[in-house]
């Protein structure tokens, strides 16, 4: 046996294997940075770890964001619901406030007038849109009769055409079959309003010599007592006078729009009330005051009704021979 006959390569490998940890331990003992041979590995590892870290934190972040989003979504839904509820409540409060204002105005008007009025609510409109009528929730049980006037604080609405026990059909001024005896407030010229089914009126059978100007207020004549005297109907928007003929007519814009009617008054008794006396005091009739102060542009229209001389009562239009001979008069009107 050859004791010295050994494999040199094996010995070198053993030495290297044994020496490497020793060298490594010795090098670690030394302070400072990592040894050169570790650098690539540590860079790679740190890169990997960083990536993993980023990845997991990303996932965690996304997950938590998603989880939060679910929560936020729920919260958002609940807040939206709450917001809608609050808005609805606010809307109903606003509605109540407006209703309260309207009703207060109506009550104030009712208290300050001599007329016997009955408040009514609009419950329906006409079946046929080519006719302008409404139904109110008062009938003959409450004393309603045909031709009784229907008004609001602002002006004339129409009159009753038929009554049932607890409701009544009211034809609006703007219906083509509705007609009301009227006066031009400034000059006391007398005529008859006819609806045109297009939200406007015609003031017909005015005598040719009558002074009527754009902007004049048209009011009720108060004859027959279905309406109070001097209650606003509308404002003249144009005057039409042909070259021939004995009468003239004017287009009138009604002061009350049918499209926003909710509560009205039935004139049970007009009590000979004359609103012509109250125009200058601004009594509860803002629109009428506006008509009188702002839109009368004629030379003699500057004064209010109190300064306008009260004319002697004019004859009924139906009794005027010149008018009745020119155009057949409709049936008696309120």
């Amino acid at each position: 046996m050859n004791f010295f006959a050994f494999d040199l390569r094996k010995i070198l490998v053993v030495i290297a294997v044994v020496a490497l940890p020793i060298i490594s331990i010795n090098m670690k003992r030394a302070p400072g940075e990592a040894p050169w041979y570790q650098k690539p590995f540590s860079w790679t590892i740190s890169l990997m770890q960083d990536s993993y870290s980023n990845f997991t934190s990303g996932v965690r972040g996304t997950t938590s964001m998603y989880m939060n989003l679910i929560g936020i979504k729920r919260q958002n839904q609940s807040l939206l619901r709450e917001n809608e509820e609050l808005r609805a409540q606010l809307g109903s409060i606003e509605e109540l406030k407006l209703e309260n204002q309207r009703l207060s105005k109506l009550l104030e008007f009712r208290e300050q007038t001599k007329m016997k009025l009955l408040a009514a609510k609009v419950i329906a409109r006409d079946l046929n849109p080519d006719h302008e009528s409404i139904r109110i929730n008062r009938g003959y049980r409450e004393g309603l009769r045909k031709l009784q006037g229907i008004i609001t604080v602002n002006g004339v609405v129409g009159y009753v055409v038929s009554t049932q026990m607890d409701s009544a059909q009211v034809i609006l001024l703007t219906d083509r079959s509705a007609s009301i005896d009227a006066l031009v407030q400034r000059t006391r010229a007398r005529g008859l309003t006819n609806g045109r089914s297009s939200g406007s009126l015609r003031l017909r059978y005015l005598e040719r010599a009558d002074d009527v100007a754009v902007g004049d207020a048209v009011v009720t004549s108060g004859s027959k007592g279905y309406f109070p005297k001097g209650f606003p109907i509308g404002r003249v928007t144009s005057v039409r006078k042909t070259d021939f003929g004995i009468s003239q007519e004017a287009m009138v814009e009604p002061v009350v729009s049918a499209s926003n009617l909710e509560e009205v008054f039935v004139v049970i008794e007009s009590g000979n009330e004359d609103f012509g006396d109250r125009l200058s005091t601004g009594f509860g009739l803002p629109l009428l005051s506006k008509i009188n102060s702002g839109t009368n542009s004629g030379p003699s229209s500057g004064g209010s009704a109190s300064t306008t001389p009260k004319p002697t009562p004019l004859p009924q239009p139906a009794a005027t021979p010149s008018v009745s001979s020119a155009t057949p008069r409709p049936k008696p009107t309120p």
Partner: protein
Amino acid sequence: MMREKFLRLLNIAIFALVLLLLTSAQTSLWMQIFGYFPAPLLWLPIIAYVAINRTPLETIIITQIFSLIMAPATVMPEGLLMICNLGVALSVQVFKTRIYWNAATYIMMVSGGSVVLFHLLHMLGSFMVRMPDYQPLTSPSLSDWIVQAMLTPLAAPPIIWLLSFIDRLTGREMAVENMEDSWGGSR
């Protein structure tokens, strides 16, 4: 025989009730929700349905009864309302003998046409009516007509479904099949 008569009367009574409900909905409920925006003429699909599914005699009788029921809801003269509704119903019957297909689109088309026809008949009729306080319709609101002619067909299918259901309930489904020869025409 008695039972058949009873069912026939019951059928008309239920139709009348539906007419009342729809008329009220059109004049009151619609106003509460949509204000004065033109409402669909909800009674016209009923008239159209009756005209399509009943004999001429029945159509005339039912239409007149319906007109009387509807009359308090309008200031339109009763007579004129009856003439207009009758005109619509009979026109639908004549139209059906010429053109007919069994589908919801047919009733929608007929309902839309009925709206236009009703307004035209009303306008024409208003010039012929001679009543002290009645004035002819000289300035029709065409925009309202158009809106109604578009809305009414949309409301028609559920109404027709309800009426067919009532017909089935009261054993009236065969009426459709038996009426073709009444005008001497065919589909």
